[in-house]
């Protein structure tokens, strides 16, 4: 537990430093004049990393769910649950940013664009994951049902990632797959700022995952101690 907390502090410290650097880059180091959409593009430096990070967190849920289904070890169920919760936190922040950008640029709070709609489905699905968990009492059954959603739910995440490429969408695309790999029109300072924001979100995600897993482990430890006292 002591080592885990040390790792948590390293991640949290890195997240704080990288976030400040990312914000500095976003508002001071990146140019405005090369953009087609003006100041509202400042949202993208953190919006896109948040989207990727929420996908990574839901990926943790998917991998841990598979691990649970294979090994039947409840430890993996905890990781799956934690991944889904952190993914939803990032998802909520992502939607907040996205909705404000939509309002400022398109003049509407919401449009039923494939990217927005499919991400809303992702959020609702992982919300349902928690409803399901709270409605099943037996831990083994709960873990099994939740793992099924954890694995199948990731299809909606992949679909959201691909939605702007396979469907007609007005959502901006930052990177696209070209002949020479990923292509974008981002300038050097913009790319650096984007990458800093990306690592800030990854380290923040790591810190939150460690903190949440610790909470779950302590809760389990309390139950065991209570049993010991009771017995």
């Amino acid at each position, binding site marked *: 537990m002591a080592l885990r907390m040390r790792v948590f502090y390293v991640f949290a410290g890195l997240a704080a430093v990288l976030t400040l650097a990312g914000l500095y880059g976003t508002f001071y180091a990146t140019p405005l004049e090369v953009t087609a959409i003006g100041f509202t593009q400042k949202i993208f430096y*953190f919006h896109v990393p948040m989207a990727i990070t929420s996908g990574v967190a839901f990926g943790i849920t998917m991998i841990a769910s598979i691990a649970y289904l294979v090994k039947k070890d409840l430890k993996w169920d905890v990781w799956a649950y934690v991944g889904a919760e952190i993914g939803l936190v990032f998802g909520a922040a992502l939607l907040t940013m996205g909705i404000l950008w939509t309002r400022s640029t398109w003049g509407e709070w919401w449009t039923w664009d494939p990217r927005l709609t499919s991400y809303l489905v992702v959020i609702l699905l992982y919300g349902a994951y928690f409803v399901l968990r709270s409605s099943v009492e037996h831990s083994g059954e709960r873990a099994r049902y939740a793992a099924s959603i954890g694995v199948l739910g990731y299809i909606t995440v992949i679909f959201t990632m691909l939605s702007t490429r396979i469907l007609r969408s007005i959502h*901006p695309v930052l990177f696209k797959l070209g002949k020479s790999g990923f292509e974008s029109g981002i300038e050097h300072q913009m790319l650096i700022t984007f990458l800093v924001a990306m690592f800030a979100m990854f380290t923040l995600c790591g810190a*939150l995952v460690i903190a949440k897993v610790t909470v779950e482990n302590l809760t389990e430890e309390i139950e065991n101690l209570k049993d010991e006292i009771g017995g």
Partner: protein
Amino acid sequence: MLLIAAASLPDVPLENAIPYVAAAYIGIWVIFFAYLLVLGGKLSGLRRQVEALTEEVERKKKTKKASV
């Protein structure tokens, strides 16, 4: 940012864009800080509970030994 699909997007005047960008950045940090506060509160509460319960278990073990 030279977004690939940016051609179809309008250039929003700076004075109109600032409140939205500010609200977006404030909004996300409010969400993260609120979540961190909830997690931190839970963690310290659980730690205190574990310490208290561990002490109780130790006390129980000692009294058991003494009675034997």
